[in-house]
């Protein structure tokens, strides 16, 4: 294995109980830095002080800076690849980093790149654990609100035509504010394709509607067409979404076959009806497995390690809260009837949060790609409070709050999602270009199908 390289990162804080002026003078004494340079470094922001150093250099420099009173952390760079230049000599770091500091925005970019990288916790030089890379979400409710309201207004004014562009802008905002190791997610769908898809879908439904006048008996044909087309629609939706999502200029993909989609979305649910839902957790598991295992990033497939047993355990976990909730409703109803409605809403909300949190956690914790795993640690009670406040505020403001609700939810969900990188994230390779029409996706959208991750 090639030698690992490290970044030396100042976390923006001084060590506890250390005085700023003491740090300044120590730094100026130890390193060839001017007072102004030291002040810029100590502004209280996270700064990469040295990039791409070998282990010995990084540790030596890190230890020296720590002695001066700065809270320093070493982060592991992706294993040296052709794209990286060898480390520059230790003496130069002051000048080099200063240049990066002066161009404000560029610094933000620069640190974003590696500062989020693998954090070496504890003492300098301790043993490596798989590096933890948090998902960052920087969306702002106010900004998203402005985009949202312009989207609605332009859609009204253009009689719906703009809605395709609206969808793309909405998604681009959310994707663009989601970052992983200094790279943002990118939504690449072509609004024209979405518009075409929508026109065809609406055409189909107008046709089936007109059919009720002319030949009411043939209505069943349209229903059959829809049922038969459902697996195709699902595959197309997943494919369109994946193909139009990218990070680091490499797209995601979806390789699921319609035949398999028919199995997990039509056949197994059909069987589930006749087993009184006992196999429902298994069906749910098969659907998630189908989605994850057929998803790709570049040429690499995702892996799904969950078992149906885990999904049974998950859904069984809801039985106790349900029983307790029903008992509470009955008991409260016996004492003071009007309150039982409140308890009922409470139970509903709890189950809503329970389902969202547990399925999200299991899905991500069981998914991996190459040697990169995910860790999702959403919690039921905070999520419940989030849903409750979002729902109340959205209802009371007639929907005007909904952009904030979206941002708050994403912030929570992404804030509890971490990539556990055990491997060079740069080894992923782009796949073949494929173009997918938006038709399937728009059919799915029309019915508000929720089959994404």
């Amino acid at each position, binding site marked *: 294995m090639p030698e690992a390289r490290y970044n030396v990162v100042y976390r923006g804080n001084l060590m506890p109980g250390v005085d700023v002026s003491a740090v300044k003078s120590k730094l100026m004494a130890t390193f060839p830095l001017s007072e102004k340079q030291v002040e810029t470094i100590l502004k209280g922001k996270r700064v990469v002080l040295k990039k791409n150093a070998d282990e010995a250099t990084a540790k030596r420099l890190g230890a020296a800076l720590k002695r001066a009173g700065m809270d320093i952390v070493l982060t592991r760079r992706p294993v040296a690849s052709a794209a990286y230049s060898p480390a520059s000599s230790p003496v130069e770091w002051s000048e080099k980093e200063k240049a990066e500091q002066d161009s404000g925005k560029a610094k933000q970019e620069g640190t974003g790149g590696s500062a989020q990288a693998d954090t070496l916790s504890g003492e300098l030089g301790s043993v490596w654990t798989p590096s933890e890379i948090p998902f960052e979400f920087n969306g702002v409710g106010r900004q998203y609100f*402005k985009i949202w309201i312009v989207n609605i207004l332009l859609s009204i004014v253009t009689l719906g035509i703009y809605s395709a562009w609206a969808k793309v802008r909405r998604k681009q905002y959310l994707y663009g504010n989601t970052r992983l190791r200094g790279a943002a997610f990118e939504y690449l769908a072509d609004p024209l394709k979405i518009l075409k898809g929508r026109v065809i879908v609406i055409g189909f439904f107008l046709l089936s509607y007109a059919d009720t006048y002319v030949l009411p008996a043939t209505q069943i044909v349209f229903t059959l067409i829809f049922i038969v087309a459902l697996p195709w629609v699902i595959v197309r939706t997943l494919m369109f979404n994946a193909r139009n999502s990218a990070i680091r200029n490499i797209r995601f993909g979806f390789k699921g076959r319609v035949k398999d989609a028919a199995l997990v979305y039509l056949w197994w649910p059909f069987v589930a009806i006749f087993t009184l839902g006992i196999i429902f957790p298994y069906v749910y598991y098969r659907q998630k497995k189908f989605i994850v295992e057929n998803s790709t990033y570049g040429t690499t497939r995702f892996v799904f390690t969950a078992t149906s047993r885990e999904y049974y355990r998950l859904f069984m976990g809801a039985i106790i809260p349900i029983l307790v909730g029903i008992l509470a409703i009955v008991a409260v109803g016996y004492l003071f009837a009007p309150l039982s409605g409140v308890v009922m809403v409470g139970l509903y909300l709890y189950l809503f949060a329970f389902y969202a949190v547990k399925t999200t956690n299991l899905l991500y914790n069981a998914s991996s790609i190459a040697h990169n795993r995910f860790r999702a640690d959403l919690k039921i009670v905070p999520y419940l409070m989030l849903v409750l406040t979002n729902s109340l505020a959205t209802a009371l403001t007639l929907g005007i709050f909904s952009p904030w609700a979206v941002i708050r939810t994403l912030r929570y969900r992404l804030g509890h999602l971490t990539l556990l990188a055990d491997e060079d994230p740069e080894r992923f390779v782009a796949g073949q270009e494929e173009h997918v029409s938006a038709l399937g996706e728009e059919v799915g959208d029309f019915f508000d199908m929720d089959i994404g991750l």
Partner: protein
Amino acid sequence: MIALRGKWYDGKTAVQTDVVCTVYDSGNVHVEKADDHSRIVTLPQFAVDISARLADTPRYLKFPDGAQLETLDNDTVDQLVERYRRTSWLDRVHLLESRFKFVLVGLLFLLIFLWGSVQYGIPWAARIVAHMLPSSILNVASQQTLSMLDRSMLSATELDADTRERLKAYFQPLITSHSDYDFNIIFRKGGGLGANAFALPDGTIIFTDEMVNLAAHDQELSAVLAHEIGHVVRRHGMRSIVQDSLLGFAILAITGDITGSSELFIALPVLLTELAYSREFEREADQYALTCMQDHYIDLKHFANLMRRVAKEAGGDEGDGQKKWVNYLSTHPMTEDRLKAFE
């Protein structure tokens, strides 16, 4: 000369490189690594696609070979666009999105639009759609509703055949005066529904036994029939279905994908609006009954008498002004308000 920093991705691998991109006045583009200044790409002309601005999200400079530069330096990118690219109409959209003044005007417009749609637009559209629906749909919908009611709430009537025949004969003048419609009077035991009457879109009108028993005079039942005929003639059944789905659609369009909120709460304003629509229909039907009764020389007080008895039966002690807010949670207007016109 314009220079900006960013991350370089070649489009073939996920390798991330810090770069500086320099665009000279001639349009010449240089991209070099930020650390050792080694050159990555040189373009003789500015053959670079630039993504449209969207708030503070990263911009992408897309190079001809599929590589791209990702940067947060939106202002510098805007300079490049101004200089070397035609501005896209999406940049104007960005202007709209970034001025709070426009957004406030937009919000105001949206609220007025929402109010107008709920108050006028949706009921108007629903009326048109409901009148376009063919009778086959009305029949199917009505049969399904009736069998659903029969299964869940209603049971076979316990009235004797004589009473039923007498009432049907008594109703005949009202029914024959609506020769365009195919009215069918049926009786059921209401059970939990108590004294009630419903109209289905195809002209089926159901009286519960309790309603019949509560009536002191057959003319009182004629008054109720006139009200139910009003529902059918004005197509309230279909209009409310269309209205409610249009409303749901409009709310969905506004709230979009609400992953973090539960639909239970979003349904609340929808429900309140639907109730308001329902009360409006009741008023329309009352109005219809009023004219219909005058045409047939039925004393208007019969309607009021029966309605009061029904309200009393249901245990409502409304009308004292303090419980006005209950009105917003009700499918029917308050009894006393309804009856003013009949006295």
